[in-house]
């Protein structure tokens, strides 16, 4: 990459997610790993002739899953950031493919707050901001649930004050 005079790049958004998000992601990874591993392990315990060929993939999956659960969430926590200014919502996500999404306040149509069962356990929430574009939705996952409620309220207030049909 050429870095000369006048070269610009996107700066990282100001805010990190709630640190509890790391735990939430870990729990998701562990649940995701546990499902196939338990099935394979139970089958391995019951079916004696195929025991080795069932327990081996179970062990491999378990190691991979736990590895991901330990390493990835901490990494994600560093890359996932968000920011809300008076003009726009700005979010950065992704590790392998980084993505920066910007939605101007004047074009926001709906603001949704969603809390799944696991998120509730970790007192987290996801805020989804949609615009009139089918492909322009901005999601902020892993916010503290009170921060999320406050943010949703603020966004809703700002968008209501903005005239026009946001297209």
């Amino acid at each position, binding site marked *: 990459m*050429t*870095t000369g*005079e006048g070269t*610009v790049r*996107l700066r990282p958004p100001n805010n990190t997610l709630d640190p509890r998000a790391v735990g939430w992601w870990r729990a998701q990874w562990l649940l995701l790993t546990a499902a196939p591993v338990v099935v394979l392990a139970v089958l391995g315990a019951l079916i004696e002739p195929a025991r080795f060929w069932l327990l081996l993939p179970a062990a491999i999956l378990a190691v991979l899953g736990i590895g991901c659960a330990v390493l990835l969430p901490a990494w994600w926590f560093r890359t996932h950031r968000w920011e809300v200014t008076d003009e726009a919502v700005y979010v950065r996500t992704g590790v392998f493919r980084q993505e920066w999404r*910007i939605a101007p306040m004047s074009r926001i149509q709906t603001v949704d707050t969603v809390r799944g069962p696991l998120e509730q356990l970790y007192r987290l929430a996801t805020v989804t901001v949609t615009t009139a574009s089918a492909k*322009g939705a*901005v999601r902020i996952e892993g916010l503290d649930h009170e921060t999320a409620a406050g943010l949703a309220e603020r966004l809703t207030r700002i968008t209501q004050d903005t005239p026009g049909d946001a297209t």
Partner: protein
Amino acid sequence: MSPEAAVSPSPDTGGGHGPATATAVDWRRLDRRTVLVSALVTAGVAAGAAVPTTLGLSGRFGFGAAVAWVLAGAALLIGSAAVGDHVRWRRTRYRIGAERVELHTGLLLVKKRSLARERIRSVDLTAHLLQRALGLVTVRIGTGEHSGNDSTLELDPVTVAEGERLRRELLERTATGTPGIHREGELVALDPRWIRYAPVSFVAPALGGAAAGAVMQVSDWFGAQGRVIEWVGERFRDTSLTAMIVILAVAAVAAGVVGALGLWVEMWWNYRLEREPGGTLRIRRGLLTSRSVSIEERRLRGVDLVEPLGIRTFGAARVDAITTGLAKDDEEQHGDHNTLLPAAPRPVADAVAADVLRETVSPTGAPLTGHPLAARGRRLRRAYWAVLVPVAVLALLGALLTPVLLWTALGCAVVGLPAGVFLARDAYRGLGHTVSGDYLVVRSGTVRRSTAALERAGVIGWTVGQTYFQRRAGVLSVTATTAAGAGAYTAYDTDASEGLAFAAEAVPGLLEPFLERVPPAG
């Protein structure tokens, strides 16, 4: 049409024979001849089905009895279709109010739907051959919301005069102050010479394949599939297998070309693009089935100049509208709904794009900023992978199993690599983006090259994406999201810094707060 006077506003009170109320005058019915149309259409279908059924039955009951049975069945079918449609006609009424358009329909499940008039974005008229003969037309009134079927009201059918009246009344708005250079009336009409682009479209091979499939299917109905294959085999008894394949392929292509020409004539005959007072673009076309599509210019966010590989090699392009609020239901999924201009010579396409956008020069013709060489490398690498992975798999299997696969692998490599490299280089040449007047222009694609000119004011957000490989190559993809058209238009693999500068320039103020200068040490 003759609006029945005595119609109660609520259809569930008594089937249309209640006493006239104050509002009853406004309620209108569909045209009564819909019953006739249904009966005739069903008769046509019945006639089509009757021949194989009679042949099938005559084997068991004798010819006379079979004919009698089939006739009775056909009569029953036509009768029930007519009665059913009569009931539908009786139970359907609509009203154009000052604020809302209402449609009540349904026998058991009464559906009452209404659209706010200010939300109506499109009024489209279609008439198939039978309807045209009777002077009828199907009207679709759409809001252009993306939410399912509830956004479209269908009046099937009303008279042509009533359809025109609805279209004018519903789309007529206070004429907006019309900025810029523009003209009203006919913008472009069909040039029959454009038919030369029909056979090179992707329709032709598809139709050829379909024709071959249809022959097999129909012969299967008559239990004669084996005989057809035998007959074909006999024709080619003295020729080699290769010659037979070539001849059959040529025949299929010829059938496809004929089909493509026929389809083109049916779709685009009488094509005309007009601008009407009040800021509406109207497209009329169709030989047998006539269609009229209206696009409100207020909803137009730009145009997309589409050049599929076939017609691009002949210097032609198609123009699609990028608009919010074109009907998105099943009928319009075929894709030609938002086409403003069929494949036509590139200068014509550019001129039409400029006319439609009320510009002197089309932004689609603006010189574009190219993308860095890294983008070409990425495309070439992608092509190599796409060719070499299957080749490697084939070669591996060939080494293990049979040498035939080895030769197949060699063939794939010999054909695939040059084709892949050609397409990759072409794709790279196609990449480009710029800001031209009120529009931002992005171009990409090789099999379907698209030059989208999107109104800068229509951009409602940015998405910037960068994979690990793009980061290493110093490129990124900038996507403008919009409420119109495909929802997002992307400049792929722009220079990391220049792409962001382009986005910041296109929509001032939106991206700037989030940009920072890279320190020269970098």
